[in-house]
């Protein structure tokens, strides 16, 4: 017995090692044991009590970073929302164009503006359709608000449109309801002047201006603009009316070309 005790004392480290390794393995293999869960649960409660102040400090240190991330996310979402709103506007505009085409008694061909030139003064635009699509020189170009110009150069796949604010552009128009005819030319911004109006004609501010139909290019009664000022010079035999056009020449994306009158 004494020898056994001495043997145990001599190799106590090995025995302890075997016992502890065995015990560790038994713990590992009893991970799902309910008693182990209860013990771990109780210790977890105690340790969570100790670690909670640290967790609070940690959360505070992370708060700043999280706020920064949220700000970034907010900006991203705002931009996304803005983009969606823009898409919505585009959708509405296209819907309007579609409606205009359906309601019109003209045979129209839709075109996309692919280039507005690089000069400071916008005077022509390039469209993505050309002679292959049936386009010819001298065809009227419209948007739902009214006339904007005419085709002057036609390629196979593209065409150039002279728009109304070109200094050389002229358009025969009629002021309604008086029916007085005149010649429209560009003045400044969105203001145009109609010259050669009869001196005795009755023209008032707010009168509608439409195409006269005298031209072979523009069909009759296409909307152009409305009168904003009437100049009646004493020594002149004519009246001059300043008009504001209805279409926005600076923001053209899609236009229609009049192919035929139905």
């Amino acid at each position, binding site marked *: 017995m004494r020898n056994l005790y001495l043997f145990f004392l001599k190799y106590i480290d090995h025995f302890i090692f075997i016992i502890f390794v065995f015990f560790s393995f038994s713990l*590992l293999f009893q991970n799902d044991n309910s008693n182990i869960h209860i013990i771990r649960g109780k210790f977890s409660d105690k340790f969570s009590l100790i670690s909670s102040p640290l967790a609070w400090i940690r959360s505070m240190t992370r708060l700043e970073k999280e706020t920064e991330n949220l700000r970034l996310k907010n900006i991203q979402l705002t931009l996304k929302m803005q983009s969606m709103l823009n898409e919505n506007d585009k959708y509405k505009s296209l819907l309007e164009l579609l409606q205009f085409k359906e309601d019109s008694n003209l045979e129209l061909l839709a075109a996309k503006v692919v280039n507005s030139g690089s000069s400071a003064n916008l005077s022509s635009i390039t469209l993505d359709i050309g002679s292959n699509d049936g386009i010819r020189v001298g065809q009227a170009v419209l948007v739902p608000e009214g006339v904007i110009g005419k085709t002057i150069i036609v390629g196979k796949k593209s065409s150039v449109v002279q728009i109304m604010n070109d200094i050389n552009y002229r358009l025969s128009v009629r002021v309604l309801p008086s029916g007085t005819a005149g010649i429209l030319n560009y003045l400044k911004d969105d203001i145009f002047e109609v010259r050669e109006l009869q001196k005795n004609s009755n023209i008032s501010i707010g009168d509608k201006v439409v195409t006269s139909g005298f031209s072979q290019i523009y069909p009759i009664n296409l909307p152009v603009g409305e009168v904003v000022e009437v100049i009646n010079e004493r020594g002149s035999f004519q009246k001059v009316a300043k008009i504001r056009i209805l279409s926005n020449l600076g923001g053209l994306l899609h236009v229609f070309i009049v192919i035929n009158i139905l």
Partner: protein
Amino acid sequence: MNITNHIFIAIFVFLAQFFLVDFLSIKMIRPDFLVIYIFYFSLLYGRTLGIIAAFSLGLLSDLSGVGSFFGLAPLALTINAYLVGFLKGKYERLLPYVFHSLWLIILLLHFFIITYVNHQLIFVTSFFDFIIRWLMTFGYTMMFFLVIQFFFPVKEASIA
């Protein structure tokens, strides 16, 4: 150094592990301060006390955490303490490079056990990823270990 001092140091190391390990975590790899402490403790006081300290600290470590493998830390630390215990007082009897290789292998084995149990699936599916993870875990703890080396070299602990 009496036993009370060692208990305080052990508590300090455990608390350091408990509180600091999250701040020092890099891509889910954490340093293991307990293995450093057990390593020095076993080198200074031998196998028997080393094993007892290793098992106790390992058990406490597992109880404080929420790991799936309850009993893994006591097992790995006990094996570590047992093997390191063999190196107590051996620095002058072994060639230095043998001595240093041995303790490095012991630490590698410790991290192998931990990594193998925790990442058995990676071991089976991608052995290379397993090796990388094992060496990363080992390397990260070794960084702290080498800093401690400057103040308390292993060879001095062995002959103390």
